[in-house]
């Protein structure tokens, strides 16, 4: 899905998300948060998976429809300079990493790893290639690339670097596995959490910090240093 909104397109940074009212009706009431997958000119690209009613309604939009969007929201991801960055996406988690990689690629050495259950679940591979990056692929069923979890090739790549940084987005189990595997390498991850407002006024999106207390994911995140939080 592409959203055409010049101001939005100019201002949105990698790591940020939009909060979308998928229906003008009171049900579903809450907005649905979707990360920005890319920006081209005046257009913002969103890539999402239909998992429930909200995303189903969102997917019904046709070209030309007007959507009620709040954003850009959240803190832009850190854009590290002159570092070895390992980008790791699982499933639809590849989406926000595309835009992030576009930025990172300009100032750091970036390697991209994309995993999915099988070949057909892999997304955006061609788009990464267009950035001049050849993503390493891993699938659970071996239908393409490495046969096994994407965290393994990531682990091997991390070991070869000096002071690497991992930036990841994907299902919670993948993130948990990743943090454990590459420890103590810092892993910055996109975290998904049920949200109320998305703008920091309701305290519904708390994420527990390991040393106590909650942070509001919609304010301090969605990209956070995973080593410091409880997933």
């Amino acid at each position, binding site marked *: 899905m592409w959203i055409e909104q010049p101001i939005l397109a100019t201002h949105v940074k990698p790591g940020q998300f939009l909060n979308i009212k998928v229906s003008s009706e009171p049900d579903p009431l809450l907005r649905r948060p979707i990360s920005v997958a890319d920006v081209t000119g005046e257009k913002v690209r969103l890539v999402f998976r239909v998992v429930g009613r909200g995303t189903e309604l969102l997917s019904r939009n046709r070209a030309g429809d007007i959507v009620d969007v*709040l954003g850009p929201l959240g803190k832009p991801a850190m854009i590290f300079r002159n570092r070895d960055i390992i980008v790791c996406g699982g499933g639809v988690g590849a989406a926000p990493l595309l835009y992030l990689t576009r930025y990172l690629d300009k100032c750091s050495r970036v390697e991209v790893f994309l995993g999915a259950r099988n070949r057909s679940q892999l997304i955006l591979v061609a788009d990464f290639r267009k950035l001049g990056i050849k993503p390493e692929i891993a699938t659970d069923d071996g239908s393409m690339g490495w046969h096994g979890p994407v965290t393994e090739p990531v682990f091997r790549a991390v070991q070869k670097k000096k002071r690497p940084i991992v930036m990841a987005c994907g299902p919670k189990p993948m993130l948990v596995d990743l943090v454990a595997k590459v420890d103590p390498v810092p892993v910055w991850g996109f975290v998904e959490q049920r949200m109320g407002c998305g*703008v920091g006024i309701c305290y519904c999106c708390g994420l527990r910090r390991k040393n106590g207390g909650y942070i509001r994911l919609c304010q301090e995140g969605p990209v956070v240093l995973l080593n410091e939080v409880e997933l």
Partner: protein
Amino acid sequence: MKYRIKIGRTVFANPVLAASGTFGFGLKFPGVANRIGGIVTKGITVEPREGSPLPRIYEFPGGILNSVGLENPGVRRFRKEILPELRRLKCRVIVNIAGFSIDEFIELVDGLDYKRVDGFELNLSCPNVKNGGVTFGQSPRMVERITKAVRKSTNKTLIVKLTGNFIDPLKTAKAAEQGGADAVCLINTLFGMALDESGRHFLGGRTGGISGPCLKPFALFCVERVASKMTIPVIGCGGIMSGMDAIDFLSAGATMVQVGTASLVNPKASLAVWQALGDWCRRHEVKDWEDIVGRTKRQD
């Protein structure tokens, strides 16, 4: 027509407030805060609170359940970090306070005796804490005792926020009036819970509070029931999403309204409600709030 409304010592520019817990501290959207009647802050407790485990929000047809569990930095950090920021706002600021004992309520108002605090809203109705909160609000005796104690400690405007959970709000509203409140706010969220597919509680806090559009018919009932029998004003709250919803609450007898869940959907909702309400008044050539407030009973 003059839109100003006075409650206690506070003059509000118009009758629409942002409800507690659904607008943070008003600092994210000063452009909204400064154009509505005022804001009610997130509930403040004496000690900092981490709040409930996750998830904290659940959606169902017509409304949401939340169990934030009064996450807040505590009165000291509020004073140090947030209060100075609040000076940037030009609107009325009511601080929602939640004590777990009478002493704590007194500690809270004593600790917040600053000019920028226009008044207090005593949260005797939070369903997401183990003690205090709604358990106080279910006892007319406690409501009166707490209100009295706080009244003695402060001259600021005092609103008592009541519950419709398992208690007739008329009883607790009368108690608040007796205790010296300047107004009561009806209602806080209703008890509710949801399960996941494996039969476990969906919310980290297990149970939560119901808010949103589906709360309106019940809240309206409570407001009508209470308003005509009180000498102090009632502030209506529950499911207000539009200007017409606000007018319904005024018609039922509320003097002011608070907009809650609507702000989660659209942070400008409270301003939109106020603008629609103002437009409606102009279109209907309303001369005085008194023409609308309580008109349902008069037309019966």
